């Protein structure tokens, strides 16, 4: 047995990669390929969000019980901490979307660290695109609804105080920033964080498992054990990142709505 510098490159080991994010039918032959694990997870996540919130919103009392206290804490986190802080007087109208968005993202992101699932649905970029498209519709729709078609375009594309000779440069840039890059960055930020996080966990877990299973090499086994331990630490970090990304996506959506409906720049 030779002790190579890059032990994982020798032999039968295949490192995790993008192919691990490509899923096929849950029941090959009976169901099409798109009925796969991420889709089922997303549906379960959505149902979980709906069921938990509907249960929480029943029998709400003026003097809260312990369970209601927790639900209120979550609700107020989005209501006061995100919606009201950013949207001020208009927050009521957008609160349902923001609350649902945050809950849906949080539950699905945390699926990456929970048994049975161990996979964050939003590390498939399609779901992230879907939510980004919806957020785009919400903040662009809010702008058009408030200022009218031309009014919102003028407001969004022509910042105050820009001299006329710069407008040919500024208008395309503003258009790009408001209508193109915002949804793309929303989607990619969410997707990339979860994709990368899950990939790192897989690298440590699968690689560590492979190292542990090598015979007659104590160094491999020890480093394999360490890397599996480390994968657990990374998972804890992923819990935090999952919550953070849910928060960021929601806050940015609220922020975009706020700039759309704000009275002045």
């Amino acid at each position, binding site marked *: 047995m030779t002790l190579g510098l890059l032990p994982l490159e020798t032999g039968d080991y295949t490192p995790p990669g*993008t192919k691990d994010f490509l899923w096929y039918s849950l029941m090959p032959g009976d169901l099409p390929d798109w009925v796969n694990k991420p889709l089922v997870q997303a549906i379960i996540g959505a149902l979980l969000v709906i069921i938990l919130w509907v249960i929480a919103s029943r029998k709400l009392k003026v003097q809260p019980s312990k369970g209601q206290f927790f639900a209120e804490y979550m609700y107020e986190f989005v209501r006061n901490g995100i919606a009201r802080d950013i949207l001020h007087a208009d927050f009521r109208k957008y609160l349902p979307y923001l609350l649902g968005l945050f809950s849906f993202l949080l539950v699905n992101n945390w699926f990456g660290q929970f048994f049975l699932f161990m996979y964050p649905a939003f590390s498939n*970029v*399609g779901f992230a695109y879907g939510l980004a498209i*919806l957020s785009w519709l919400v903040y662009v729709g809010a702008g058009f609804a408030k200022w009218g078609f031309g009014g919102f375009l003028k407001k969004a594309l022509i910042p105050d105080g820009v001299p006329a000779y710069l407008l040919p440069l500024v208008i395309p840039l503003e258009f790009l920033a408001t209508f193109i890059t915002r949804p793309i960055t929303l989607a990619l930020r969410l997707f990339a964080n979860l994709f990368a996080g899950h990939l790192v966990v897989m690298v440590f877990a699968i690689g560590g498992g492979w190292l542990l299973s090598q015979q007659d090499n104590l160094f491999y086994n020890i480093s394999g054990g360490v890397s599996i331990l480390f994968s657990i630490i990374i998972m804890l970090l992923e819990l935090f990142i999952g919550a953070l990304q849910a928060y960021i996506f929601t806050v940015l959506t609220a922020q975009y709505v706020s700039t759309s409906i704000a009275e002045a720049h």
Partner: protein
Amino acid sequence: MVPLEGAQDLLGPLAPHYWSEVIAGIILMLVIFLIMWKVVVPAFEKMYEERSNRIEGGMQRAAAAEAKAEAALAEYNDQLNAAREEAARIREDAKNQSATILAEARDKASKESQRILESGRAQLEAERSQLVQDLRGEVGGMATTLAGKIVGESLSDDERAMRTIDRFLAELETAGSQR
């Protein structure tokens, strides 16, 4: 829906594996939004409203109770002051009244004593004059009898005898008053 192989080659993991993901994301989020919009958020907002109403109502009730207590206190203080004033007035009245009663009683007593004194004096005077009258007659008779016995003759002439007696008595009186 088949995997988007062409896009995968170009964009790698940035291309959705299936368009169903995008559609599922949108539909699921819309369903969640509808539930939030129609059920969850109204329930929570209603509860918050009730809570703020209750707190506001409680504060109003507390303020009302405080005002009531203050009014009651003011009323009690007023009543206390009125009672004190009345007591002082009654004391003053009593003092005045007692003074007048005393004065009246003193007046009455002095008048009474005066009257008693007066009547006693009048009675004395009457008795005295009666006595003087009686004595005068008696003394006159006795003197006449005595004088008759001494002189030995009856002083039958009453008129002369009376004159003599009177003169004698007058002399006696003057002698008495001189002494």
